[in-house]
């Protein structure tokens, strides 16, 4: 029974993390899946969201803290919205110079913004406490739920130990419900958007920018909207992470955890498919956890085991790209309305 409860507790913890990744993956799906925007700086938007939430909702600087501002102790919801807004604003700024250019430029600029954000987090201690990071970020309703659960268990010492254990972890269940709630809301919203005229324009842009432009769409504006919306969702993911982890530092947002795993999740799940984005998050996070378990049994040092796990993720990405580029749940393609015309000068355009 203890083992079972241990597994249940682990699964709750697992689902909270995977669900948070599901949010990031949904955000990336808006950018890459719907619109074809090649953002490999997910970690930057994720970090901005996490730090914004922590600064808006967290406590003011401690005595040993390097900070001089921040920590407004506002409510969780305000922090979440602020995280979305600030991450969206960063997306807006990065989109302006890059979205008129080829995909390569956006890609490299997003790598750049993610690295630059990490540098700012490390160097601007007055705001971020530098490499020591932000601590004691409050988890919403932690006090009443946790104290209530602990009080409940104390008042009933006759309960079976496993039940006591389960109840005393009630907060994790609450947070899981919160993550799932946010994820479901975002999923429903994205599904609606994907089917809306707006979503159709995004897909038209992804399929062929020139055609979309020729049918009178302001391609740049649509791409910018998609980039900003995706960045906002990633910011929300960051806020969810910060409030659960309660401690964040620049190292929490290295490209591996912040960017690459999210990409593998979306590609494995199914680029362009919202359900796939969430399925991919849970699957890849499951694989990631399993490799942790397996490498524990192999005769490797800790750094070797860590490296091996990442190699597995890298190889997994290549295998998907080669063998099943459409992912586990391929995008549901409706009939295409726009057809690619031949480039000018080519004689064989289809007769009108």
């Amino acid at each position, binding site marked *: 029974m203890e083992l079972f409860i241990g597994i249940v507790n682990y699964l709750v913890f697992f689902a909270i993390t995977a669900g948070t990744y599901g949010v990031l993956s949904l955000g990336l799906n808006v950018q890459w899946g719907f619109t074809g925007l090649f953002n490999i700086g997910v970690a930057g938007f994720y970090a901005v969201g996490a730090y914004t939430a922590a600064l808006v909702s967290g406590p003011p600087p401690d005595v040993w803290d390097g900070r001089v501002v921040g920590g407004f102790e506002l409510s969780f919801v305000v922090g979440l919205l602020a995280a979305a807004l600030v991450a969206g604003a960063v997306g807006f700024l990065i989109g302006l110079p890059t979205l008129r250019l080829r995909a390569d430029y956006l890609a490299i600029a997003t790598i750049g*913004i993610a*690295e630059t954000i990490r540098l700012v987090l490390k160097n601007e201690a007055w705001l971020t406490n530098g490499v020591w990071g932000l601590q004691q970020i409050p988890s919403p309703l932690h006090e009443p739920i946790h104290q209530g659960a602990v009080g409940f268990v104390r008042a009933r010492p006759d309960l079976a130990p496993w039940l006591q254990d389960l109840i005393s972890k009630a907060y994790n269940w609450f947070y899981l419900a919160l993550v799932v709630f946010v994820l479901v809301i975002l999923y429903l919203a994205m599904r609606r958007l994907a089917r809306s005229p707006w979503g159709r324009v995004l897909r038209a842009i992804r399929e062929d920018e020139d055609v979309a432009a020729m049918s009178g769409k302001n391609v740049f504006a649509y791409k910018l909207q998609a980039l900003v919306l995706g960045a906002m969702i990633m910011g929300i993911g960051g806020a969810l992470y910060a409030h659960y982890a309660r401690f964040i530092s620049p190292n929490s947002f290295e490209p591996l955890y912040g960017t690459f795993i999210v990409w593998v999740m979306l590609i494995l799940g199914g680029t362009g498919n919202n359900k796939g984005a969430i399925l991919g998050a849970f699957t890849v996070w499951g694989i990631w956890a399993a490799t942790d378990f397996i490498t524990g049994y192999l005769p490797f040092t800790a750094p070797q085991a860590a490296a091996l796990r990442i*190699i597995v993720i890298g190889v997994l990405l290549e295998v998907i790209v080669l063998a099943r580029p459409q992912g586990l749940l391929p995008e549901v393609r409706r009939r295409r309305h726009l057809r690619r015309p031949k480039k000018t000068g080519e004689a064989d355009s289809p007769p009108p």
Partner: protein
Amino acid sequence: MDALSRIPQLLVYGIVSGSILSLGGIGVSLTYSILGFSNFAHGDTMALGAYLALALLPVMAQLGLPSGSLGPLSFGWDFVASLLLAAVGTSLAVILLDRLLFARLRDTHRITLMIATVGVALALRNLLQFVWGPQPHYYTTTIQRAILIPQLGIRIKPDQIFIVAAAVLLALLLHLFLRYTKMGKAMRATSDNTALARVTGINTERVILWTWVIGASLAAVAGVLVGLENKFITPELGWQMLLSIFAAVILGGIGNPYGAIVGGLVVGISEEVSTAFISTGYKPAVAFAILILMLLIRPTGLLGRRR
């Protein structure tokens, strides 16, 4: 010391690191112009070269190559041989990668290829970490005396002169290759127009092979030179330089190897000179600032043509 008086010395550092960035950038630019995608694994290819040289160094010494220092330099013939063999080894590894992965994706969308290079970057870097660990490794622990040039207010190490000379030599060889050999001309032709190159009868697969070999060889040399300049190598070495390399390539005009050389020098010098004015912690962000500035005012780059 005031900021301005440090500038001559920072220029020296900038030229040295710029030379290395140029060598790295050439490969990125060639891959872009011939294969049509940005190779985000190029930095980690450099790291691979650096580690192959590290592994070859004791082998060379055992084969009897003298490890005594060459004149004022901190290394001997064993190191030079390792450097060259590392270039060969890196080329072979990259060709293998092309056969296993990139060649199979040749006809897919170019972003698919870029995603694949991101995966390669990740796997390659961690392969190095798996074998050699995350801690720094050293080619040599010899302490080198810097040459003082008081008139200019600079000091420069013989190894640094070697780095710049090696970069200049390789850039010159590349120029001669592109300008005067049949394969070099075919590479320029393919870069101009791949479809036309094919109907002309140019064997574009062989052009691609040469592109990988040149890019990987220069990357390997660049990686080893980073180790020589920094005095140590880590698996992160290439990834850390990737942003600077791309900034250099875009600054010079992506797809143009000559632009990569110019861009590398500009980015290298800017990064070093910036430390006279802003916190050293932000040195990596200088490349990013150059990149954004360039995208805003002239996205085709200094030497770029419209594509």
